[in-house]
């Protein structure tokens, strides 16, 4: 009996070695393997052994054969002791033994082999133990025994089948749960991977989850944060009242806003906070997922920018004020200076008229000088005023047709030519972008200069054209073959009231070129001049293209 039991145990273990219906046993591993998981010796676990994938079908057939084979074997093994016992005149043991074999088969191998076992057991019983012995005839006296055998076996088989089914379902459920848990832990670990601050609190504001990002931002480790009220822990300051926010939040399930918190070390942070509402199965609010982004830096910088902007606007207001002051000053200077000037000129002339007879030549000459000086002062004041106006006036930038503008400037300047025959060479000029009135002044000044300084020439030639610019601006030049200038003094050329020629040689206040430079600079361009004494001069200026 013991031998057969141990035999059966061996059978069990061998079967499990090949088994395919015992997944629950998978975790059972021999103790030494558990202790040394990295043990180099590859021990077979009691669980599944991975076969080579080839010949799967053959394998399956083999398995089936094995199962039924074992069924038969178990019957045989039950039979042997039964026969033995029979020999030793121990009766009534054979039926239980056969039942045992069938039960064993049903439990371990399933309904199919169990059926085979039942059949074989019945046959054996009939043959070996039911009179007449050693024959397959069935007497009425044996029928109850056989019926009991079969029904009992069937019952065991059914139990076994149920057990299998439950086992299968449990295993399935467990696998599913395992997968879910694995997924959840993965998600949780993902939430923990991010540096974004995420925490979850329930409807009583108690924190239930606190990720690594939250630890980093607030300085509270999860162990300390979980279980506490988030409002108390972080000393939350909300932008609106909690009632307003709750109303919106519970309705839409979302809320976004800027919130102030206090870190573990006591410092304040401002965060951009997003709340998401999770509802349970009854659609009642269950938990709030809060995601926060630290915007303290951004807010600080915004403050800085605001401060800088304020300063800027203050400065620009101050600048405007000072500009206005300058304007008033320039205006009053010009007007207040003009009145006495007018009187000087007026009374000097009256004096001239009334006492020219009484004045000698010297006296008359002095008279003339006084008058001329007064007049010159008037011109200077006018020029200065015009020059300052250039700086103060608003530029009105539009596309300007330089060809047309040149024609206008020419007609104005023609008056100064006094009928001289000037060889004009006018090339085609493109359209540029700038203030029409100011650019007109530039052309008038340059042309009138050219006319003036070509006076000593017998064959004056003045050329106006376009030189190579770049992609953004074009260069215009005015060239004459007049008095020219020494390149040594080119830097002084555009200075205010700077003149390179004597007043008796060429009249002028020396403000024409300064005005040109000022205007061109206001357009963002450049001026340049080249000259050779007594050969001529060329003046270049650049203006933006359209």
């Amino acid at each position: 009996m013991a031998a057969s039991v141990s035999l059966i145990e061996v059978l069990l273990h061998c079967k499990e070695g090949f088994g395919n219906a015992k997944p629950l046993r998978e975790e059972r591993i021999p103790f030494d393997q558990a202790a040394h998981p990295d043990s180099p010796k590859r021990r077979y676990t009691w669980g599944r052994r991975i076969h080579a994938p080839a010949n799967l079908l053959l394998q399956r057939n083999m398995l089936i054969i094995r199962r039924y084979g074992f069924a038969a074997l178990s019957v045989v093994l039950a039979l042997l002791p039964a026969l033995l016992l029979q020999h030793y005149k121990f009766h009534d043991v054979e039926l239980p033994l056969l039942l045992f074999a069938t039960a064993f088969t049903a439990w371990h191998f399933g309904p199919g082999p169990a059926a085979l076992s039942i059949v074989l057991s019945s046959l054996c019983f009939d043959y070996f133990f039911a009179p007449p012995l050693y024959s397959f005839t069935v007497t009425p006296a044996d029928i109850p025994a056989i019926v009991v055998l079969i029904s009992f076996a069937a019952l065991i088989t059914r139990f076994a089948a149920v057990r299998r089914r439950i086992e299968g379902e449990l295993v399935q459920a467990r696998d599913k749960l395992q997968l879910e848990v694995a997924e959840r832990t993965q998600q949780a670990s993902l939430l923990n991977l991010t540096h974004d601050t995420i925490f979850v609190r329930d409807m009583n504001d108690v924190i239930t989850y606190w990720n690594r990002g939250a630890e980093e931002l607030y300085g509270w480790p999860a162990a300390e944060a979980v279980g506490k009220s988030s409002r108390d822990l972080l000393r939350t300051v909300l932008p609106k009242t909690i009632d307003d926010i709750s109303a919106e939040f519970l309705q839409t399930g979302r809320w976004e806003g800027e919130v102030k918190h206090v870190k573990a070390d006591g410092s304040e942070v401002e965060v951009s906070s997003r709340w998401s509402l999770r509802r349970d199965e009854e659609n009642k609010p269950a938990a709030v997922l809060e995601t926060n982004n630290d915007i303290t830096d951004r807010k600080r910088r915004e403050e800085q920018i605001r401060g800088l902007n304020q300063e800027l606007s203050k400065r620009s207001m101050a600048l405007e004020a000072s500009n206005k002051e300058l304007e008033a000053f320039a205006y009053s200077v010009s007007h207040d200076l003009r009145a006495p000037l007018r009187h000087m000129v007026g009374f000097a002339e009256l004096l001239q008229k009334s006492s020219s007879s009484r004045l000698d030549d010297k006296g008359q000459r002095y008279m003339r000088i006084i008058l001329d000086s007064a007049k010159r002062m008037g011109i200077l004041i006018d020029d200065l005023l015009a020059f300052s106006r250039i700086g103060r006036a608003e530029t009105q930038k539009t596309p300007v047709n330089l060809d047309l503008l040149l024609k206008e400037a020419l007609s104005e300047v023609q008056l100064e030519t006094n009928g001289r025959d000037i060889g004009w060479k006018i090339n085609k000029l493109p359209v540029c972008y700038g203030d029409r009135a100011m650019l007109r002044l530039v052309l008038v000044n340059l042309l009138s200069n050219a006319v003036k300084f070509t006076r000593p020439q017998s064959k004056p030639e003045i050329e106006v054209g376009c030189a190579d610019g770049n992609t953004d601006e074009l260069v215009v030049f005015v060239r004459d073959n007049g008095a020219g200038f020494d390149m040594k003094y080119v830097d002084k050329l555009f200075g205010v009231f700077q003149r390179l020629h004597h007043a008796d040689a060429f009249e002028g206040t020396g403000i024409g070129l300064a005005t040109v430079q000022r205007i061109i600079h206001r357009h963002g361009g450049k001026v340049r001049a080249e000259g050779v004494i007594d050969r001529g001069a060329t003046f270049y200026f650049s203006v933006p293209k359209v």
Partner: protein
Amino acid sequence: MVEDDPRDVELSLTALEEYNLANEVVVVRDGEEALNYLTYQGQYAARPGGNPAVMLLDLKLPRIDGLEVLRRVKLDEKLRMIPVVVLTSSHEEKDLVASYTLGVNAYVVKPVDFHQFVNAIKELGVFWAVINAPPPGS
């Protein structure tokens, strides 16, 4: 003529002399005097009656300035008819707008150049005193 600068007054009178108009010019030195003259008050209480044929008004005057004088004149029933010529060194847009809004008859900017100034005065004098028919009662 309402003008505070004595030299401008002298130049103007000298210019008008050419047309023998200088004697007919009453010169007042500021806005208050001008109003006193027109309303027969203060030192002008006993002046001979009649409105001037034209009033040459400078805008930059001490005490009551030119625009205020203009406003009061144009508001007064009896003085409204007096032709007013603003003669000023200012050619600011706002002064032009204000003057014309108040109903000035002419706005002349004092030329900076002496000759032009004298010519302007002469032409003004000739026009208003000779060519233009003054309002009745002047």
